[in-house]
């Protein structure tokens, strides 16, 4: 396995503002990497630097083995880039738009035509390929965008907010498409998003960027244990009835680090699995258990935590 995208202390400044600060990122071949962060965190700026569409102030990037600042064409030959809110030539049909991009990539017409037909089928626009793009819905445009980045048969895809502005169903379809393509063609995918829930399941690894700094990088569950090192056991306990004095007894259980009341019960942060003790306590008190749920450190928790710190 080798890194398809790699950055070394990549930095970008706009006058006083540091948009991207000392970024070290690496995306391995064949993986789907989620580049996550709130709006204005520097995701798009990083992507522009990866494609040589803007120059870094300092640091270096390597994409498919080439430096995008000095050899942008080599990178652009190998990487399909879908910008945020991609636009198309409205007067042309979807097929003509793809054909133009194919010609810009110096793909001979005889080769491009069947390829485009195949791609349109694949993204589910087989019947709409000859309609003018102005008649397309947002979801259709986004899918056309996916087809467009595939026209050049790239090694890697860089997708900037591919689900932006789509309804949940449309977003799910796009993500499914991306996952399928990545698996089928062994494509490396770097996708940026500020929508955690959507991309969480599909990314092999994620990087979280806040205010230009990469604050965490790794697999989703690893990130969880990195943050909640000592209290990775979180439980939600809910009981029915009059739990008089239960709270103080819960607090006395060894291993419970923190306890916070909820509507019908408590949220417990523990440094070990205290579920047997909790259950015996509840039954001793003669209360009926509504639920005892283990709450994992989800990406959302991670995200929120980092955001609070940032």
């Amino acid at each position, binding site marked *: 396995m080798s890194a398809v995208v790699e950055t070394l202390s990549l930095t970008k400044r706009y006058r006083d503002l540091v948009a991207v600060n000392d970024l070290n990122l690496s995306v391995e071949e064949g993986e789907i990497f989620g580049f996550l962060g709130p709006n204005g965190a520097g995701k798009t700026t990083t992507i522009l630097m990866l*494609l040589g569409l*803007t120059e870094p102030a300092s640091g270096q990037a390597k994409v498919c083995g080439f430096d995008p600042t000095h050899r942008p064409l080599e990178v*652009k030959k190998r*990487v399909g880039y*879908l*910008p945020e809110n991609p*636009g198309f*030539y409205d007067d042309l049909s979807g097929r003509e738009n793809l054909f133009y991009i194919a010609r810009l990539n110096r793909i001979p017409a005889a080769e491009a035509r069947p390829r485009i037909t195949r791609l349109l089928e694949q993204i589910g626009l087989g019947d709409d390929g000859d309609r003018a793009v102005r008649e397309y819905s947002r979801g259709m445009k986004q899918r056309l965008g996916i087809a467009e980045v595939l026209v*050049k048969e790239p090694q890697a895809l860089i997708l900037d907010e591919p689900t932006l502005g789509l309804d949940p169903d449309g977003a799910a379809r796009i993500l499914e498409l991306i996952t399928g393509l990545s698996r089928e063609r062994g494509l490396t995918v770097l996708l940026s998003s500020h929508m955690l829930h959507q991309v969480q399941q599909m990314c092999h690894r994620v990087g979280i960027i806040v205010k230009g700094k990469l604050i965490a990088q790794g697999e989703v569950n690893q990130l969880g244990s990195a943050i909640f090192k000592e209290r990775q056991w979180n439980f939600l306990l809910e009981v029915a009835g009059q739990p008089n004095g239960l709270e103080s007894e819960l607090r006395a259980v060894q291993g419970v680090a923190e306890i916070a009341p909820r509507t019908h019960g408590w949220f417990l942060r523990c440094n070990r699995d205290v579920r047997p003790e909790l259950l015996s306590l509840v039954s001793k008190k003669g209360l009926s258990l509504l639920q005892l749920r283990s709450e994992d450190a989800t990406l959302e928790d991670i995200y929120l935590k980092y955001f609070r710190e940032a």
Partner: protein
Amino acid sequence: MSVVFWKELADHFSSRRFMILLAIIVLTGVWAIYASGQSIRQDAESAPPEFVFLLLLTSQSGGLLSLATFLGLLGPLVGIMLGFDAISGEYARGTLSRVLSQPIYRDSLINGKFLAGLATVAVLWASVLLLVLGLGVTLVGFPPNAEELWRMLVFTIVGIFYVGFWLALALLFSLLFQRTVTAALGSLALWLFLTIFTPLIAQIAAAFIIADPSTPEAMVRQVDIANMISRISPSALYGETVQVMLNPLARGLGAALPEQTQGILLTPLALSQSLLLVLPQLTTLIALAAVCFAISYIKFMRAEIRA
């Protein structure tokens, strides 16, 4: 680059904008020819009969603008219309970052766009000229001579460069202003300023410098100064060039004292002599277009392309 060029050219020719331009130009062209055809008999008496075809372009009949002047007025509008949304339009549609993330050099996009615009202008201008020739032959009854054809060809080339300047300017504005409307209005404002206000300002400034033109020499100097200042404007350069190229009898630009013109033979100048006379104007015009394009080029190569 050729991919961009052909696509842009196809876009131009299939656009409604182009159809409107073509219709306007052809209609007024026909009208102007018809009108000057009416008055050509009187005008022909002052011009040597061998240059009747050039008269079709320059004669002003019944207060109507001559075709050459008219094209000089309409040309900038054509250039601006073809260029004002070249970059800002791509930007607004969100296609720019997509196209520039393809393996093409950045300059091939801007070069392709500029050349496609220029080719469109050339087609428009040439079609007007062919129209003139065709109608002229039926009006006059005999074909133009070689000298006339050469002069008309030079006129066409000058016209294309002139419109090329406005195209380059509109392209620059479309790069400087990310909003299409701002780019269009900016170019139009500059056009109005250079075409209409610069001659006025030049006259006022000249009157200020030579406050009391009592002697003929002072009057000539005042006119010369006004001419010099108005040459800031490409419209003035175009006007002078066309005036000399389409009138073989023109031997100089600006005012001349009666003593200076005394004894001058009223024979037409050779094509090469006419060309020599307007060489400074011609080169300045080309240089202006080149400078405008160069600025857009440099600006575009260094721009950050954000979606």
